[in-house]
């Protein structure tokens, strides 16, 4: 028994050491820096207590970043999961050329984030972009829209780009879950006279409930931390209209050399992520227990 435990720790050790060095050390370093005035100009950290926190919270940009992060995260997660689920439902049917269809749908997910963002930058171009061209041709708009330059439109525009990039991820997970739904239950429901909607609501959704919850929480974490698309499309602009935590941290740290303040933004970000990760652990634990009971 003791030998087994030793072996467990021995096998875990490389991963734990790697995590400690690559993850926890920088994370605690960030927390430490957030209580110290430190920048490229004054690299020796000077203890500042909560001064940086007070300064950041008093800055109106902080409130904008918080609101933007909420809108961005929930907007992307909601749309990405709805679109991913609907696509999975469609691809779960016995359609011809199913393999090809799945490959096509997966394409945005395979593209690197920066490439996807550049693609959308071209598509959103006010003068030459595909989006305006299509909308003008179909008469849905009368004048070109500056999708990324108008602070009222910019957040919605980056959300659409992110949903396009991310929905295949959700789709993949939902498709795998749908393929594991007990077919005999669906057949039984059909024999009892249940239509497609009733079968979906009463059989399929309850059967994949755990997967939906885990998927939503997982995409919440990934989306909150997403950087590439917004940075390439708008750099958080116009003004601060699309600044979220990761873009603000990057701009403050690497764009302005203010490491202490960047770390403080980082700590806020870590706190949100900690809550989301805890949520994920709880949800996953419950799902595992339910499966164990079943």
């Amino acid at each position, binding site marked *: 028994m003791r030998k087994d435990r030793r072996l467990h720790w021995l096998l875990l050790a490389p991963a734990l050491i790697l995590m400690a060095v690559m993850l926890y050390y920088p994370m605690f370093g960030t927390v430490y820096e957030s209580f110290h005035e430190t920048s*490229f*100009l*004054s*690299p020796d950290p000077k203890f500042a207590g909560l001064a940086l926190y007070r300064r950041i919270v008093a800055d109106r940009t902080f409130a904008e970043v918080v609101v933007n992060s909420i809108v961005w995260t929930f907007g992307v997660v909601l749309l990405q999961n709805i679109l991913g689920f609907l696509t999975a439902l469609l691809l779960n049917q016995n359609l011809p050329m199913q393999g090809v269809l799945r490959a096509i749908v997966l394409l945005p997910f395979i593209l690197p984030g920066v490439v996807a963002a550049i693609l959308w930058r071209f598509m959103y*171009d*006010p*003068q*030459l972009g595909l989006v305006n061209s299509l909308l003008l041709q179909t008469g849905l708009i009368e004048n*070109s*829209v*500056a*999708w*990324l*330059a*108008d*602070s009222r439109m*910019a957040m919605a525009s980056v959300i659409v780009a992110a949903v396009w990039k991310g929905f295949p991820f959700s789709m993949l997970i939902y498709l795998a879950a749908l393929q594991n739904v007990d077919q005999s239950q669906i057949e039984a429901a059909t024999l009892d006279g249940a239509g497609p909607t009733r079968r979906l609501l009463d059989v399929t959704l309850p059967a994949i409930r755990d997967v939906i919850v885990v998927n939503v929480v997982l995409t919440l974490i990934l989306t909150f931390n997403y950087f590439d698309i917004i940075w390439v*499309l*708008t*750099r*958080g*602009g*116009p*003004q601060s209209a699309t600044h979220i935590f990761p873009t603000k941290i990057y701009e403050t740290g*690497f*764009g*302005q*050399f*203010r490491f202490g303040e960047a770390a403080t933004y980082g700590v806020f970000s870590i706190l949100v992520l900690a809550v989301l990760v805890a949520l994920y652990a709880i949800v996953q634990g419950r799902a595992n227990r339910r499966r164990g009971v079943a």
Partner: protein
Amino acid sequence: MKRSLLTAVTMGAMLLGTSSVLAQQVTLQFWDNQQTESGLSDVQKAAVERFMKENPDIKIEVTTVPYPEYQQRLLTAVQGGNAPDIATLDQIWVGAFAKAGAVADLTEQAGAAALARDNFFGGAWDSAVLGGKLYGIPFNVDVWQFSYYNKALLDAAKIDPASLSTFDGLKAAAEKLTTNGKFGVGLFGHKGEDTVVVGDSFIFSNGGKVLNDDGSCGLTEAPAVEALTYLQQLSKFAPGGILNASSGDMRELFLNGSLAIEFWPALEQPTLQKSKLDWGFVSGTAPEGKTPVGTFGGWNLAIFESSPNKDAAWKFIQFMVREDVNGDVVDLIPANKKAATAFLEKNRKDPKVIMAHLENAKARPLSPRYLELADAQIAMFQEIYAGGDPAAAAAKACEAINALD
């Protein structure tokens, strides 16, 4: 037997000789960035080979980093204690690197080597001076902006290109040219330094300042606010989406004939020369009777304080800014004035116009906190391009700038 003994002794002596050269040889890490696909790195490699031939005791290892990653890579290297020996620094970074103690004071070496302001463009030299000390040697320069124009569009509208040099002339031309789906002038206001340098040039040309002589913000002074108001009026004749547009975004519109006038540095010429477009340019824009004042851009060569081989590094810098070398190793314009003259004659259209604009250009404020200062300016430009009150936008920017210590 005798012959083999002799051979062994000779080979031993040769090996000893080689190892003694190797022991004395120092290796310098030189970092540079690449802004364009100009094939510059090959030319630079040849120059570095030449330097190593002239100085067999010094080996140069060149690292070329793409421009978008360069600042972050350099910053991370300095913070991590892995700075190179020599690097090109953007003019606007020198203040911060000097204040942080990351780069060496070159005042004495420059004096001893007779490298002086007169050898270089004044604004470029000034961009390396902080507190009376010199922290870099100008390597390459350019000036924002030249007003490039589409000759066919101007001819069709019967506009004299010379009129683009004045505030009134440019506005009248932009208004006239904005018709039939075409745009008069390409303004850009994204979160990037090109937004700042063009805006500064209009402020400078109108007699305004970003910082006053005492270091306080000068953007609320009348000449600066007038220039901002002028830019706001000009924006009516620009393609939509200014707040997310860069100078690069305007290129496609200019090249396909949808845009009549665009603001770029001289570096844009090679791209335009490759196109079929009939184009010309004038040096910036100023009020009637005043000379347009451009904003300097460019890079300085700096030696890092952490370098154990500062003397060798200094030798390399002297070589790179030499009249017969400087023109071969830059893709902007050589900072050495004599090299610049030859370079412009060979590579650019209307070299005298460019030289005159360079001589008259001003450097951006040399502040250790320039990047934050520029962010405040970008917010100001975005506000005026979005239709905000120029005086109020300038006041907000000054509040942020004056709060920087």
